[in-house]
């Protein structure tokens, strides 16, 4: 069945750009027939499972696999001693062991993998592998990890990277200063679809891996050396992806399944259960942020001094870039002429962290927006007015020295947000109890309710930055179909649920004037699509498909001219409604000119970017920016310490909405994840161990937690990209947490400097978080990743 997913294209017939075209994958998803990674099946397949360390830091004294191998149905157990080739992998640095070698650095680290005839046998075998550990001291606090006497988590110490941004005169004098300390807990992406894939050994000695992922080519680059094969013999095929949000940017079961399949010569499927999923992917970086913001009496910002720590956990993943993002956006989307921003990502024996929607911007937005509200209060200014006065615009210079050259309609985003309708304020006694804080649990009666309103404004880069060229390749074929011309799109760009493939089809319909478009399943038979992350695929895959379509159109029109003679065409030739037009005169169906298909393959690159220098400055660190604003209305029952969000009103800067309903879906879904971080979602760590690795204990927002979301978009086209469209995936996630926290402060008058906010904090039973002062600056040179110095 799996392999029903192989090479299958999904077809759609209607909707150009700018329309809310139906999802190209909608029908199979609604029917329940869409094949996700966990639905794959192949004749004779075995089931893989992973033995994981229960200790956050330990030496492995011995591993005895014999008791597991003695169990019925168990075919193979692999440990580090069995690895055939490279032993470490990683997204940015190869620092993560495929299987632990002598040392484990976090609780949940893979120590052995095995395959059995059925999942129950595999589970029993995991319990039967005997691993003798010698526990070692664990570093489970990021500030403790920076102390000179802290045990070293990695061979290079505990500092992953330090970034320093110095802009203007950081000692500039201001009339008013406000200070704050902020903490962000560890959030999980929690896509509903578990990590899953099926590795099938191929007759040529290679392997085909069908897997739910965000970036096939990055996976392959990491898998191939570890299984000892050249990249061309490791063929990846995207299985249906049940949400991602950053969790699938790293390799999970990929290498393990390929190793087992290759060593056994049989297909091996691996699917993580929910508990294992919490150990099997990286999480959002916990943050500690110390901020000092200075302004003139009239509200004009003068200086931002920020020091921040991000916890990388035991391995690097994308921590170095998340840190760079957190630092470059730490002062917020405001003109700040003077800034000193110092950030450090720190290794600990907690689970590794990496990409999650918002990628460093979420954490700093929580801090810079709290600072703006403090400043507004200190100045006696309206918080909206203060933000409007300082918001960046095209031509503004950012703390990195970068001048914004593209679209930056921040002020319009803020103004539109403030103008969205407020929710009705119905007395608690006149309402359904479900609408009260605590009402769903039948504990709230609405006697002690206070309403609060908060606003947040944030921004983020689209696509990859700091000199990285994250291109995307697309192949487009136009041919004669049964009912007319059909365009087929092939890229390696992954649809994770956000609607990318529908948008690609809309682009092809627009560019080629056809109705029917097939989007093939992504695989590594074509060049990299780059990651489905950083809100980049509308720009990058969209750009590649638009460019390839333009080449197809050019080639087709050349055929038309050839067929009709050079003098036949009087006006500009164009394609529309399945026909070729000469100006307004139809020349005939596109079909007519498709005796053989017309094909084109193009690679799209965004404008080049530049790295940060040793002072954190750069000509062009980021390609382009998206801006988001959100207003939250909350109600808090102070006796119960319970809150309910009444409404979220969000506005996002999207360049152009290629599929307006899809954009709304991104704004609403992103807002829900921000609400989760504000009030519910945190991985609870106890001495390095995850204490809530289940949906019973890790609380995702339900339909009872989510309020109505009203939203609007600002369409200010970005120059130099197709249709002026920017990305849309991250804007609302960045601002929702900060907006809700601000509203909770407004309702309670409390400081609430940590998210997720707890009932004790809302009820005044737990004080605000304090810190002895900014963490020390590590003794490392410059802004580059420490590992670069090896």
């Amino acid at each position, binding site marked *: 069945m799996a392999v029903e997913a192989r090479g299958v294209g999904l077809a759609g017939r209607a909707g150009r750009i700018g329309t809310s075209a139906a999802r190209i994958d909608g029908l199979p998803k609604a*029917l329940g027939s869409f094949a996700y990674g966990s639905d794959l099946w192949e004749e004779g397949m075995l089931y893989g499972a992973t033995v994981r360390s229960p200790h956050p830091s330990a030496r492995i004294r011995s591993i005895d696999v014999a008791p597991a191998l003695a169990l019925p149905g168990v075919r193979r157990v692999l440990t580090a001693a069995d690895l055939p080739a490279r032993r470490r992998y990683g997204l940015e640095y190869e620092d993560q062991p495929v299987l632990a070698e002598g040392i484990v650095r976090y609780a949940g680290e893979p120590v052995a993998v095995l395959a059995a005839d059925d999942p129950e046998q595999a589970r029993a075998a995991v319990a039967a592998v005997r691993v003798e550990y010698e526990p070692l001291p664990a570093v489970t606090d990021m500030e403790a990890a920076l102390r000179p006497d802290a045990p070293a988590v990695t061979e290079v110490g505990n500092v992953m990277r330090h970034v320093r941004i110095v802009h203007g005169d950081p000692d500039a004098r201001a009339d008013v200063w406000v200070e704050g300390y902020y903490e962000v807990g560890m959030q999980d992406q929690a896509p509903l679809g578990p990590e899953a894939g099926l590795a099938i050994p191929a007759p040529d000695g290679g392997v085909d891996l069908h897997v739910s992922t965000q970036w096939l080519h990055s996976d392959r680059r990491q898998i191939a050396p570890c299984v000892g094969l050249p990249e061309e013999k490791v063929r990846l095929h995207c299985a249906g992806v049940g949400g991602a949000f950053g969790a699938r940017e790293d390799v999970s079961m990929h290498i393990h399944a390929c190793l087992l399949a290759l060593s056994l010569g049989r297909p091996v499927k691996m699917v993580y259960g929910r508990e294992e999923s919490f150990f099997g992917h990286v999480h959002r970086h916990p943050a500690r942020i110390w901020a000092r913001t200075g302004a003139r009496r009239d509200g004009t910002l003068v200086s931002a001094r920020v020091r921040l720590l991000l916890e990388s956990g035991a391995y690097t993943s994308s921590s170095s870039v998340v840190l760079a993002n957190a630092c470059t956006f730490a002062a917020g989307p405001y003109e700040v002429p003077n800034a000193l921003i110092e950030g450090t990502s720190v290794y600990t024996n907690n689970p590794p962290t990496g990409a999650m929607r918002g990628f460093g911007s979420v954490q700093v937005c929580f801090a810079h927006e709290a600072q703006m509200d403090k400043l507004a209060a200190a100045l006696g200014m309206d918080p909206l007015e203060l933000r409007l006065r300082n918001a960046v615009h095209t031509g503004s210079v950012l703390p990195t020295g970068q001048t914004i050259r593209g679209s930056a309609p921040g002020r319009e985003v803020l103004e539109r947000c403030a103008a969205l309708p407020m929710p009705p304020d119905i007395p608690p006694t006149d309402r359904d109890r479900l609408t009260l804080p605590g009402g769903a649990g039948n504990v709230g009666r609405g006697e002690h309710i206070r309403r609060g309103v908060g606003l947040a404004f944030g921004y983020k880069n689209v696509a990859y930055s700091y000199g990285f060229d994250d291109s995307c390749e697309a192949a487009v074929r136009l041919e004669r179909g049964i009912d007319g011309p059909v365009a087929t799109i092939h890229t390696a760009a992954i649809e994770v649920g956000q609607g990318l493939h529908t948008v690609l089809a809309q682009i092809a319909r627009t560019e080629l004037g056809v109705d029917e478009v097939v989007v093939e399943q992504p695989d590594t038979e074509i060049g990299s699509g780059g990651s489905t992350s950083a809100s980049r695929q509308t720009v990058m895959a969209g750009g590649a498909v638009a460019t390839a379509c333009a080449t197809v159109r050019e080639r087709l029109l050349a055929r038309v001219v050839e067929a009709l003679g050079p003098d036949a065409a009087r006006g500009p030739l164009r394609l529309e409604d399945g026909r070729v037009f000469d100006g307004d005169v139809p020349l005939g169906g596109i079909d007519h000119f498709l005796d053989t298909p017309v094909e084109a393959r193009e690679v799209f690159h965004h404008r080049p970017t530049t790295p940060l220098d040793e002072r954190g400055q750069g000509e062009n660190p980021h390609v382009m920016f998206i801006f988001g604003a959100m207003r939250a209305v909350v109600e808090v029952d102070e006796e119960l310490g319970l809150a309910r969000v009444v409404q979220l009103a969000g506005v996002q800067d999207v360049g152009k909405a290629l599929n307006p309903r899809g954009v709304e879906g991104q704004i609403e879904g992103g807002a829900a994840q921000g609400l989760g971080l504000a009030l519910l979602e945190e991985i609870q760590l106890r001495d390095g161990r995850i204490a809530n690795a289940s949906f019973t204990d890790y609380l995702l927002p339900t339909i*009872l937690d989510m309020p109505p979301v009203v939203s609007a978009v600002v369409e200010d086209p970005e120059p130099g990209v197709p249709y002026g469209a920017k990305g849309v995936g991250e804007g609302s996630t960045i601002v929702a947490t900060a907006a809700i926290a601000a509203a909770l402060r407004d309702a309670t008058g409390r400081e609430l400097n940590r998210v997720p906010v707890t009932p004790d904090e809302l009820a005044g039973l737990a004080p605000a978080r304090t810190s002895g002062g900014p963490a020390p600056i590590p003794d490392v040179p410059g802004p580059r990743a420490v590992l670069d110095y090896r």
Partner: protein
Amino acid sequence: MLVRLNVNGGWREAEVWPGASLLSMLRDDLGLWGTKNACEQGECGSCSVWLDGELVCSCLVLAAQADGRHVETIESLSHDGVLHPVQEAFLEAGAVQCGFCTPGFEVAVADLLRRDPHPSEETVREALSGNLCRCTGYEKILDAVRLAADRMDQVTP
């Protein structure tokens, strides 16, 4: 052990281990992949099915408990590719993103509208509070429920 169920109108049987859930029997033994496995502890509703007409999380029911009983899955909602009004409404309202929660939600919504053709917003929220969606923020799912209720109302006044 041998378990025999009536699934979507036909009797099916499979040899399962005594601890097997109804979910695992449907997926792994009967090839009905539309019922999804997201949490396997009754928190997310992705595996919602009807057992003798009652909405259950199939991960919390032993296959053995379902022996001799009637099970209806997401595959029973559509007939020969003709969508149930709830499925149509999910597509039209934009309630489908990654789609992993979609079958469970559609079963739960169809169940709600069978019992209460005109649910208030609070009723809908309460009825669907056992189904998690990580993508949509639920706004479009609520739209889909309203749309489906209106449509079904017109069909059967």
